[in-house]
């Protein structure tokens, strides 16, 4: 399984991370080295082994649907980098994505 600089660029886009070309090359080198090491797990036979996603013996934890206090709007907006009229402000989104 060969990972290329192009794949790393695509991953950076999926992860919504901006890199300089130089940074990207360094990450690419490190990812090649790390994934090469991690690929060691492929030597294990895991046929018929179920995957573990959570370690607890708890499934579908339910609770009563009782209404309670929620975070007031002004509290929720307190840490916003930009807000106005009681809303979070974001740049224009009505544009085609590249």
């Amino acid at each position, binding site marked *: 399984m060969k990972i290329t600089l192009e794949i790393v660029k695509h991953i950076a886009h999926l992860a919504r991370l901006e890199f300089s070309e130089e940074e990207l090359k360094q990450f690419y080198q490190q990812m090649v080295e790390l994934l090469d090491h991690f690929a060691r*797990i492929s030597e294990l036979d895991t046929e018929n082994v179920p995957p573990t996603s959570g370690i607890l013996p708890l499934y579908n934890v339910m609770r009563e649907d009782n209404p309670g206090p929620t975070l007031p709007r002004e509290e929720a907006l307190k840490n916003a980098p930009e807000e106005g009229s009681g809303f979070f402000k974001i740049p*224009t*989104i009505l544009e085609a994505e590249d």
Partner: protein
Amino acid sequence: MIFQPAHKILREIRERNLSPVEVVQATLEWAQKLEGKLRSFLVLDPEGALAKALMLEEKLKKGEEVGPLAGIPVAVKDNICTRRMTTTCGSRILENFLPPYDATVVEKLERAGAIIIGKTNCDEFAMGSSTENSAFFKTANPWDIERVPGGSSGGSATSVASYQVFLALGSDTGGSVRQPASFCGIFGMKPTYGRVSRYGLVAFASSLDQIGTFARNVPDLALLTEVISGHDPRDSTSLPEPVPSYSKELDSPAGTLRIGVPRDLLQEGLTPEVKEAFEDALKIFERAGFAIEEISLPHASYGIPTYYLIAPAEASANLARYDGIRFGLRAKGEENLISLYKKTRGEGFGAEVKRRIMLGTFALSLGYRDAFYVKAQKVRTLISQDFQKAFRKVGLIALPTSPTLPFKLGEKVQDPLSMYMSDLYTIPISLAGLPAISIPIALKNGLPVGMQIVGPALSESLIFKASYLFERESGLSNLKPPIVEELSA
């Protein structure tokens, strides 16, 4: 006074021989004196701490009920939410973040009367083994200020080891409480996954994250752990089982007396100093009445690749929330939403966090998911099963905490793989969700060495008892690093 164990100070406060204000003032004075050299804290809050101490004093005067930690100064890792202090996770992206709520463990500490004096430095979003990945500054190891305190809860470990506080909270995803406890010569407990509520702990890898505790002796550690444990309706992954009084059970018999040692893991990567200290510690356990037995954990050596696929995959999803919209940093001057996300995250995250988001996104991406992420989840099952089999033979398992002595600042920071290897012995336990403590077992070349005692799920009480027997047999507790001796002389 500040060099006394917390359980003695508590008695003095309850008997009115000491006041919480005296304790807090003396602690703050000492903490500030050491802070210039060690830099454990991202925030110190002397005014808030003194105000709490005064309130407690009023309650004591009136003869009102005070909690089990009344008047004890504590520190909290900066990835645990506090309403009255910023919570940055050691990251630029949360530099000015003031949470609108307290974590459940913070509420529990305050209800117990503990006095939170500050928030401690850590690797950014708890990703690291040296605290060097903090976006703000590095923390020193009190045993040698040119060495790392371990990580990611390095600030909490240093603050306890240098007597800046009596107790501290950290978080442990792959060893971030145990390894710094070992590097700083103190005790650190990672409870069973789900034993402590994660509500208000900033998420890194949700199937592994667990809040843990630091202290300089077992009775103090047991007390702090019982205060923060228990079910929380706000965390559906917290366990419903009642919490035993770990501190009161310390003196009852340990019962099972067999400790397993996975000798197959003690080969590659283990340095001679740590190996020697570990073997000597096993002899101390034998002297204390334990039988040492060889066991095997055949898949544990696959722990590092397994963990470094699963934890980054979960992190890549958890850290998607830092988008520059609702809180935290926002990059300037971007007019397109996608480029705003990219630039904000590019500026706000440090190299290690980006590396893990990239690894995790890769492991989850189309065409690679089965070979990396799902494969790792299956190996996780095998690692868990190894432990289950071992616990049919023995009651507890012993392992070194770190394969090396504390390393120098800057030594590993450019080499991610060698940094990841320092989690060799802590990671398999995290993957299996088991409780484990790190206890000090020796000083080698003037540096502390730690050992882990691991038990089955919810065996915290047994782990504390065994550790307490060791502590009394070895005399290795309440250790004073040279810098503490010098500055207190």
